[in-house]
């Protein structure tokens, strides 16, 4: 019973943090954009404009909740729901830190240590495209349909390369559990080399990062919703909080994919000199390290968005199929050979 309550609290905290980070990601997106463009950005709502997400959210709630006459009503409602649900679900297998101790109770900083955690995330990411697909199709609007089709083809193309990069990490770790993957990268330096996967698999990291950009539909791969061509793409017909859900889902998945990158390649909650701490101090510092890494990646995502123009669709397909997949396959092959050599297969 107490375990149930513990898990419930962890879930609620994770849920709130995900939503909070997503809300403030919208604020920081605008701030970062402003800084890059020599502007100030939102600064009217509260000091430095920190109440801006509340103002935006409140505005979305008060807008007319409109469903087009020719739209498939239930699918139209289902679309943003799926997008939001999936974006929030992926967070539950991410290990945020080592366990916190409250007297007798040991609270794991992870909602569920699924032993196929990374498969779970990949699976839910692929379901995520259904939210976009269903919403875009149900709108009965050609721009929305274009956006939906683009989203699905982009997902299919980039999930492959992403999956192969994950396989290289899994081969090195020998486990699909995210917790094992993080523990495998314990500390920062061991046996004369860095322990974090990014130093062992830099190529896989770059490819995974590019694919993560594509999977979260962010610039330069924001073709499903490109404002200039498709007037918003799959959420053209959406208004009010339904559109808010889509945008929220996008920022939530931005947060989650930054966390996944941190877990897979940057050691998750590990930080240099972590062996000097233990217990709750270690756990809290771990949370801080994890969130610092995540926020750095969120910033890099934004930095890229406000730097690079959008890819053309054929360029996107060429990049995905002709470059990323072969490179990641070769990378996987080389990794496999090195592992086999170390295991003594060739002796």
């Amino acid at each position, binding site marked *: 019973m107490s375990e149930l309550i513990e898990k419930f609290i962890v879930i609620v905290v994770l849920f709130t943090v995900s939503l909070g980070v997503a809300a403030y990601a919208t604020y920081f997106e605008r701030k970062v954009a*402003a*800084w*890059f*463009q*020599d*502007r*100030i950005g939102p*600064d009217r709502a509260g000091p430095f404009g920190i109440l801006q997400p509340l103002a935006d959210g409140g505005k979305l709630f008060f807008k007319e909740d409109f469903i087009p006459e020719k739209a498939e009503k239930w699918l139209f409602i289902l679309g943003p729901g799926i997008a939001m649900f999936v974006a929030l679900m992926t967070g539950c297998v991410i290990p945020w830190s080592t366990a916190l101790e409250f007297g007798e109770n040991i609270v794991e900083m992870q909602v569920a240590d699924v032993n196929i955690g990374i498969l779970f995330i990949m699976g839910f990411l692929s379901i995520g495209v259904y939210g976009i697909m269903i919403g875009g199709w149900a709108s009965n609007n050609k721009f929305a349909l274009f956006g939906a089709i683009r989203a699905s083809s982009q997902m299919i193309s980039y999930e492959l390369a992403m999956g192969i990069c994950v396989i290289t990490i899994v081969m090195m770790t020998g486990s699909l559990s995210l917790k094992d993957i993080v523990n495998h990268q314990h500390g920062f330096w061991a046996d004369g080399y860095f322990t974090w996967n990014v130093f062992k698999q830099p190529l896989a990291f*770059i490819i995974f990062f590019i694919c993560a950009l594509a999977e979260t539909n962010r610039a330069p791969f924001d073709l499903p919703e490109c404002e200039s061509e498709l007037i918003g793409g799959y959420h053209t017909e959406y208004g009010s909080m339904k559109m808010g859900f889509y945008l929220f889902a996008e920022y939530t998945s931005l947060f989650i994919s930054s966390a996944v990158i941190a877990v897979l390649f940057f050691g998750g909650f590990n930080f240099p000199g972590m062996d000097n701490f233990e217990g709750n101090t270690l756990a809290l510092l771990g949370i801080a390290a994890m969130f610092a890494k995540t926020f750095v990646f969120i910033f890099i995502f934004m*930095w*890229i968005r*406000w*730097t*690079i123009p959008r890819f053309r669709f054929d360029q996107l397909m060429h*990049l995905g199929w002709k470059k990323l997949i072969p490179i990641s396959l070769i990378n996987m092959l080389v990794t496999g050979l090195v592992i086999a050599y170390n295991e003594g297969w060739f002796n």
Partner: protein
Amino acid sequence: MQSLTDRKKVVGNKEMTFKEKLYLPAIFKGMGITFSHLFRKHNTLRYPEVKREFAPVYRGQHVLKRDEQGRENCTACGLCAVACPAEAITMVAGERKKGEEGLYREEKYAEMYEINMLRCIFCGLCEEACPKEAIFLTDRLVPSTFERDEFIYGKDLLVEDVNLRIDITKRQLTGKRTEK
């Protein structure tokens, strides 16, 4: 042809080199450029609190001037309406009656004088055409409204108040109409 600047760039469907195909070097270069902008000073003026100063030659909403004794300068000669390229100005001339000498400077005056602010392009030709120093453009902005009719400014909005004179010395000092 000899180009006037050396910024001409011949474009064509040339194949990308290997380095360009990698995209990454160009992307990192671009990210470096945007990052340098993080530390630059912003150019934003927080508008309602801080207002940008107008240039002395700024051409905003018109004013119909009065002379030192408070009489309207305009004699409804119609030169401004003729000069107006947007045909925004219209007027009806009237004859000054006995007892109105304090109101109008000369025997003829404008009974009705209208400028359609939606037509006006704020070129300032009316001001240049005026022989009586009656019309000037000022540094005031034409406020927005919801109705088109409200943009047709009559004499009630254009003629300056006797007690609240509109200062146009800055415009006169620009040397446009010193010798008149």
